[in-house]
């Protein structure tokens, strides 16, 4: 009896061909992007999304063309950070038009499409078993966004990743070997442990981990114009990771309120200087390995 491999074709669906064509569409859509940098952590609540937005703005200050793709499909923040809630997605001349902030930063986020009072729902003919197929459907949507958006010419596409060490690895596989990673942690051994797991997950991939950013590295006090400890003495040492630290960014309460309002301009101060330092480090390391 013939084996599977003796029978040519797949019964007529050409599933492999469809997958290849999907990959070609993504490659074609991303052909104008010089660098893809994914901002991950593994840990939730460390400020990945806020830092992603700030890094994009810092790279634009450094005269680089940037856009953000919010890969956190279930907890999207970028639409609010960018002030792009309730802006409908629109077809463009070539694919889906890239939504832009008032200052011109391109931001694609499910948050523009699904109100915060709702969660992202996929239609299903198999209700009650979403755990079986949901992740596959989410990655399919992510790939659709990669392949459908008219990204144009970009120096950097920053991808804001969802939490989960395993998700970090899965996004590395989807984004391909050229995508680089920046991991975000905070000065706590608890966060360090999870970020270390994400770094370990990426070790087996061809993807470069540019370094990590320590967020909430103290807080900026506007009254005394100084940075004070947030997590206690010795916390920073406990959070050290075995790869380059790009910058330590103090918590600035002014940024928190501005971000909530969709006006993410960071006032001058230690946090802004640290973000600019992180962007400069990314530019330097990308230039070295390109």
């Amino acid at each position: 009896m013939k084996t599977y491999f003796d029978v040519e074709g797949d019964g007529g669906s050409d599933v492999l061909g469809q997958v290849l064509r999907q990959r070609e569409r993504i490659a074609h859509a991303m052909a104008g992007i010089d660098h893809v940098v994914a901002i991950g952590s593994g840990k939730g609540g460390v400020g990945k999304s806020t830092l992603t937005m700030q890094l994009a703005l810092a790279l634009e200050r450094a005269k680089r063309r940037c856009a953000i793709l919010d890969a956190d499909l279930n907890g999207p923040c970028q639409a609010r950070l960018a002030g792009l809630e309730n802006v409908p997605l629109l077809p463009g001349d070539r694919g889906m038009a890239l939504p832009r902030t008032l200052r011109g930063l391109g931001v694609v986020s499910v948050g523009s499409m699904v109100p915060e009072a709702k969660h992202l729902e996929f239609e299903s003919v198999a209700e009650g078993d979403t755990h079986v197929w949901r992740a596959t459907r989410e990655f399919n949507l992510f790939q659709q966004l990669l392949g459908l958006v008219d990204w144009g010419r970009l120096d950097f596409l920053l991808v804001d990743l969802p939490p989960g060490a395993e998700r970090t690895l899965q996004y590395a596989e989807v984004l391909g070997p050229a995508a680089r990673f920046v991991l975000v942690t905070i000065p706590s051994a608890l966060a360090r442990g999870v970020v270390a797991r994400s770094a370990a997950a990426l070790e087996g991939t061809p993807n470069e981990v540019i370094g990590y950013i320590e967020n909430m590295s103290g807080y900026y006090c506007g009254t005394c114009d100084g940075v004070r400890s947030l997590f206690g003495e010795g916390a920073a040492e406990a959070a050290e990771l075995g790869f380059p630290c790009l910058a330590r960014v103090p918590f600035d309460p002014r940024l928190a309120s501005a971000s909530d309002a969709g006006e993410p301009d960071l006032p001058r101060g230690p946090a802004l200087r640290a973000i600019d330092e992180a962007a400069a480090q990314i530019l330097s390391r990308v230039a070295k390995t390109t």
Partner: protein
Amino acid sequence: MKFLCVSCDEQMKLKHAVGPDGGSVAVVYACPRCSSEMAMMMNPHETQVVGSLGVRIGPEAGAEAGTATSKCPFTGMLTDLGVPAAATGQVGGGQGVAGNGESASIPWTSEARERMANIPDIVRTSAVAGIEKFALDHGYEEVDAAVLERARTFFGIA
């Protein structure tokens, strides 16, 4: 997935499909040599898993045609076999632009409707709603390519 007629050692060919019915599709294959037939019956879970992959099952031309606008992974197969589009949730046939059975609140030209294939299917409904709101708020009686262009300008989108 491939099907082999064990008696003839010959690949079976897709003959026709029945459904969809409650998310289930029955697909009949026949052996080109002995004409024996078998039916592959998929439960809703299997249909959903295949659909999650973003591929279409069925003859290649039909599968490609169904990719952009249908939510059913078997659209290609069913279209090729003459199953009405409405049964598979495809755009057209009285269905809303989003292909979800909702009636559009304002007419769309076929060109404008086709351009919505550039929006991922899962968020197409909300995109359609946003565009229709823009069109109605600005006094347009139909969504055409020019209205889509004006909406892009209005929202500052590239």
